[in-house]
């Protein structure tokens, strides 16, 4: 049975189904239950934006509130993952990675290699990412490139409810550490999602729109803006193929390259800051692996090299827009 649910509901449903399926799955984070120790209702919050709401009633103390100590509880999740649990830890906003990155990148990500392949660390770290929420410089970053840079991590950033459910289920069943980034500006976005549980494999991009004129590769919130740009351009007879990368590590370079071999033109769109970004990573791969297919310079459309501004007037300029993406496509068509 398929029905329309939001990305927020998709997260909740995937957690619920995986907890039902596997008793070793535990979920932890600040206020993910909400109200622990407080005089009012239990399960008062279900997370700062209500994403985990209702799970405590179903799964009890397999959901755990934590003190405000990200290194300690994220590190504990990672440690527990080497001891038979399959923890899903929520780092409320990915912007908080700076207070707990060591446990993620020097511990969890490196265990398997440092220990000669003799350990598995099946942990998922969920976090909200992205701009457009008027949440300012310390609550609006993507930071996808930082995690993608780190060997040993897998990095997921879905753009819709269907992918969210399938990729989160896959993340929880996966035996490596996964950074699962939920774009907060997409939480309300709805799509058709089956009730039953399913997984989507990592490293498989989705071609959302086929086209022959140019390829746009992106992920997260800018997927929708890219599709919008493609629709606008279609009116001018420019036929854009839009690729949703879905997972950034592993990344599905094959689908991008195959598309560029068809279109000859590539625009990489990234809500992250430009330097050493996903956009530059995809560009560079194509410039090395499919150079011969390119008919024009690769264009990158990214956030500027600035922090995220608070003022809505500026934040709206910060995030790549459908217009900006369309312009970049026109530029590559003109070259």
């Amino acid at each position: 049975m398929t029905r329309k649910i939001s990305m927020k509901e998709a997260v909740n449903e995937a957690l619920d189904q995986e907890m039902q399926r596997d008793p070793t799955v535990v979920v932890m984070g600040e206020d993910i239950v909400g109200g622990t120790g407080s005089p009012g209702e239990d399960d008062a919050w279900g997370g700062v934006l209500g994403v985990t709401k209702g799970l405590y009633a179903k799964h009890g103390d397999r959901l755990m509130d934590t003190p405000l100590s990200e290194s300690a509880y994220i590190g504990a999740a990672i440690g527990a993952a080497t001891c038979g649990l399959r923890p899903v830890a929520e780092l409320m906003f990915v912007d908080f990675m700076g207070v707990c990155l060591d446990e993620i990148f020097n511990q969890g990500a490196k265990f398997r290699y440092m220990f000669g392949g003799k350990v598995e660390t099946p942990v998922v770290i969920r976090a909200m990412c992205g701009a457009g929420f008027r949440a300012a410089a310390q609550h609006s970053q993507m930071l996808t490139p930082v995690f993608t840079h780190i060997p040993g991590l897998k990095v997921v950033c879905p753009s819709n409810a269907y992918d969210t459910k399938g990729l989160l289920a896959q993340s929880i069943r996966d035996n490596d550490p996964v950074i699962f980034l939920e774009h907060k500006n997409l939480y309300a976005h709805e799509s058709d999602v089956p009730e039953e549980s399913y997984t989507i494999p990592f490293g498989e991009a989705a071609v959302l729109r086929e086209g022959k004129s140019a390829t746009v590769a992106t992920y997260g919130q800018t997927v929708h803006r890219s599709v919008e740009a493609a629709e606008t351009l279609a009116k001018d007879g420019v036929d854009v193929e839009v690729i949703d990368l879905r997972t950034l590590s592993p990344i599905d370079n094959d689908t991008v390259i195959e598309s560029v071999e068809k279109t000859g033109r590539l625009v990489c769109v990234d809500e992250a800051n430009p330097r050493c970004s996903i956009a530059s990573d995809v560009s560079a791969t194509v410039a090395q692996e499919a150079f011969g297919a390119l008919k024009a310079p690769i264009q990158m459309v990214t956030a500027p090299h600035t922090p995220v501004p608070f003022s809505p007037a500026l934040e709206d300029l910060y995030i790549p827009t459908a217009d900006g993406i369309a312009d970049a496509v026109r530029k590559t068509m003109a070259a």
Partner: protein
Amino acid sequence: MSATATAVSAQGSDSPFPLEKDDLLSAYRTMKTIREFEDRLHVDFARGDIPGFVHLYAGEEAAATGIMMHLTDEDRIASTHRGHGHCIAKGVSVHEMMGEIYGKVSGACRGKGGSMHIADLSKGMMGANGILGAGAPLACGAALAAKKLGHKGVGISFVGDGASNQGMFLESLNLAGVWELPVIFVVENNGYAESTSVDWAVASDSYVDRANGFGLPGVTVDGTDFFAVHEAAGEMIRRARDGGGPSLLECKMIRFHGHFEGDAQTYRAEGEVEDIRNNRDCIKMFADRVSEAGVISRVETDAVDAEVATLIDSAVEQAKAAPLPDTADLLTDVYVKY
């Protein structure tokens, strides 16, 4: 953290007040300005006028005010996500604050920071902070600068009960002790971190113990009692200025509003908010005391109330009327020079 740890600084909270009338009036004005500022934000946020996350300080005014009265612009404070009260008490312009919260160029940060990042270094306000615990090292840095540059400034680090479990804060307690920094750590314990209770989340009987675990003297006061805060903070700040090193002040206080605007607060006890609003309103308690002692009349406080209401009206009006930042502003102010 046990709910019974309420030891209150014993002395000095009684009449005759240790402050001149002018100072008392000024304290009242500061507290009232914070309250009015916050209550107005509460209304305007609900109406949809204000973007983003807004965390209100209403109910906690006595703490910011009692501490900041000891400070000059040379003294630095590192604030939190719940920073409006600290800003106002430290002398940041309410017009610039309101402009910032509305995302306008008239804002303290020209609209780029927002509620969670209001700063005014010229007033010694090093910034609200969206990252809990991150201000503690910054305040240590301010204290270090004062020490190295040879002036008598102090640094004040504010954290909530929740943030008191953050590693950056805990490390700072030790660093301040080792470097003998003129810094005071103020734990604003309002009982909750978002929806989570301090009694559960802080595994310690008292903040005095926690301070002692880092070799620091610690004192707990009733943070809704302006006079108690004022006295305890005064002593710590004097000691820090005189080279006596760091200390920790826990202010037990209460939050009138939700964690942020939009919070339904179902984690609170039934009647809790009404009760504290009726019986533990720090401003009302202050006003009652000074008027009962015959030092400040109701007429005088009413006059301040009116003055403050006008001030906030004008701040809101100006903020609404001010222009939004310009397209070009997106790219400026990243570096001094790049």
